[in-house]
């Protein structure tokens, strides 16, 4: 009671605001709950179940198409390969995210070097026992994660190199880095994807063709490394100059100084910024559907055009489902970044 008086009804103006806010909550929550639960359809196997004037969400649409949402058109007999890749990724990532688990260096090497190779072998196939699966069959969450993880794995080292290049004392290298970073950051991702899918083939010699997904991966990776470079540069700028001078005075070479002294500290400073770039990249993976690759959102849209499920409420259901899935990933990442921020700050407080 005391709490309510203090936080909700401390003055006339505040009481009025509270009532307006309560009304807002009421007009948002009640229809949403009604749509998602009370009037929703939970069973059925076609649009017939979801047709009707006062029907809410059409949840059978989601579970009937669940496999498509996760694997796309990946052949059913080979889906165990995708599952192994998902499992290995989780197995590598979870210990990395827990600060108390040791052997971070080996963990990072596994995730950045061994895991991508393994994942490519498993997903693409083309070896005895592993039939080739063309990337045009990939789809759904699989493609979303492939694009996001490639962007992350490539952009981190490339971004570090670009950031070092931008702070280099050599004018030619600095100029190239600045031009690269500013050009990629100055254009929208969609034009980069158009460039990768329409313009890039023109620059390749006759007979050399790149897979559409691979071209987009190149575009996304270059685009995100420019953003990563700016984040890393922020970390480098926050380092006191004494660190580098002391390292050089001890006789360390430039690469040694950077690898053993500067980068470990600088990167730790900008972990929140790096995670934010990852979140942005994860959300931007949806754009690949514009150039004809079926990521999670693209797959939802494909399933929506299925006449078996064409009902007024399926579209809303599909988008709300996709939004919830993306939200869980992005919100998880942002919570983790806040957690790390507090942890890092705790080390600096005396």
């Amino acid at each position, binding site marked *: 009671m005391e709490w309510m008086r203090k*936080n*909700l009804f*401390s003055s006339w103006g*505040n009481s009025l*605001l*509270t009532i307006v*806010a*309560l009304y*807002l*909550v009421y007009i948002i929550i009640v229809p949403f709950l009604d749509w998602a639960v009370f009037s929703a359809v939970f069973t059925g196997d076609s649009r017939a179940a979801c047709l009707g004037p006062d029907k809410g969400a059409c949840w059978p649409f989601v579970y009937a198409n669940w496999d498509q949402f996760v694997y796309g058109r990946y052949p059913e007999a080979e889906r165990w390969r995708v599952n192994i890749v998902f499992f290995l990724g989780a197995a590598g990532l979870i210990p990395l995210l827990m600060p108390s688990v040791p052997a971070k260096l080996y963990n990072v090497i596994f995730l950045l070097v061994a895991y991508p190779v393994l994942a490519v072998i498993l997903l693409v196939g083309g070896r005895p026992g592993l039939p080739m699966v063309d990337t045009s069959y990939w789809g759904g969450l699989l493609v979303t994660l492939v694009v996001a993880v490639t962007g992350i794995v490539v952009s981190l080292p490339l971004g570090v190199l670009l950031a070092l290049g931008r702070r280099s*004392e*050599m*004018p*030619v*290298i600095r100029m*190239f880095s600045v031009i690269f970073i*500013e*050009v990629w*950051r*100055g*254009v*929208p*991702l*969609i*034009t980069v994807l*158009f*460039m990768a899918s*329409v*313009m890039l083939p*023109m*620059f*390749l*010699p*006759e007979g050399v063709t790149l897979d559409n997904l691979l071209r987009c991966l190149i575009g996304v990776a270059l685009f995100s490394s420019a953003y990563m470079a700016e984040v890393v540069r922020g970390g480098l700028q926050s380092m006191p100059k004494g660190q580098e001078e002391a390292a050089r005075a001890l006789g360390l070479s430039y690469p040694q100084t950077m690898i053993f002294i500067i980068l470990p500290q600088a990167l730790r400073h900008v972990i929140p910024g790096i995670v934010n770039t990852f*979140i942005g990249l994860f*959300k*931007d*993976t*949806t*754009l690949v*559907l*514009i150039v004809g690759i079926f990521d999670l*959102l693209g797959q939802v*849209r494909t399933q929506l055009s299925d006449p078996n499920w064409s009902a*007024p409420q399926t*579209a*809303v259901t599909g*988008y*709300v489902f*996709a*939004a919830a899935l*993306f*939200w869980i990933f*992005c*919100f998880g990442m*942002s919570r983790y970044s806040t957690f790390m921020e507090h942890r890092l700050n705790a080390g600096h407080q005396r």
Partner: protein
Amino acid sequence: MWSFSRASISWTNPGFRAFVYQAISLVLVVTLFWFFISTAHENLQRLHIATGFGFLENTAGFGIIQTLVPYSEESSYGQAFLVGLLNTLVVAGVGIFFATVLGFIIGIARLSSNWLIAKLAMVYIEVLRNIPLLLQLFFWYFAILRPLPKPIDSITPLPGVYLNNRGIVLPQPVMDGSAGAFFLVLFLALCFAYGLHRWALKRRLATGHTFPALPVGAAVVVILPLLVWLIGGAPLHLEFAEHGRFDLTGGMRLLPEFIALTLGLALYTAAFIAEIVRAGILSVSKGQTEAAYALGLKPGQTLRFVVIPQSMRLIIPPLTSQLLNLTKNSSLAVAIGYPDLVAVFSGTVLNQTGQAIEVISITMAVYLVLSLITSFLMNIYNARAALRER
């Protein structure tokens, strides 16, 4: 830096090493570019694709659903480019206005002492900024705006405003002959109010006397044009849409594509702006507010004269980059069929001409120029607003 004596040509000389590294990278980049350009040249010849920018004068032959300048199917590709560019700028301009206003409101609400308001703002921010913008655009366009009723059964939330699956129809302002005088007086009144504000500020800084510039200025801006409007016999009136046989006639029509894009961009960017505003206000130390109270300033005055001017220095640079992001994100228009620069030029024109290199380069150049201009202006602002420490 570039000169080194004969004796110093050795790997132990850092100047020499730097020279070699740079020479190697220069050669690599030039070779790479040369390779790309020559293969592109070969490919274009092999595929018989025209090159150059001559195509801009050819007839476009396609229609565009929203044009701000005269355009028809007989117009050239160059004019189609202009239409697309203007459509991008319009949606970005409207989006920037709403995103900034909403972002500031939510950012301040996030810091409200009212628990419920602060939590509501937090939920808004966390939900909107963690869902991909493209998904939000699809939601507004395909799940909300397209399933609206046909024009004949339009929803009418306000008199004269019609909502249907072909967009929103608003009353159209119509001007008569003497409307010019009205706008002239309005303009003069605005100039006067601005001058008054400057004068009051100068006087306050010099003497400490305050003058109610805001109410006086507002009164002038409202009353004078209103008088002219009445004397001129209401030269400016609203024309309402009417129900025709199948559709509404008259009025001002906004396309559903435009509404979905503006709504999506504004709501999404507002979440980011709100966080920037919140961080900016929190960055002003509590001592500043307490000192202002101790000097006898009221809470409103403290906010206006102490907190906001100081937080603006921190808010404006990231705010500009968000607004630039909004402009770049407006290129997602292509996914819902709004005819912006990317949809018209990199979409239709590219498909018709096949000149991918030229078309994509022009499109990228436009966005690049926009962002370079913005960062140039930002540098000027930062230099002016930088804290001058004594």
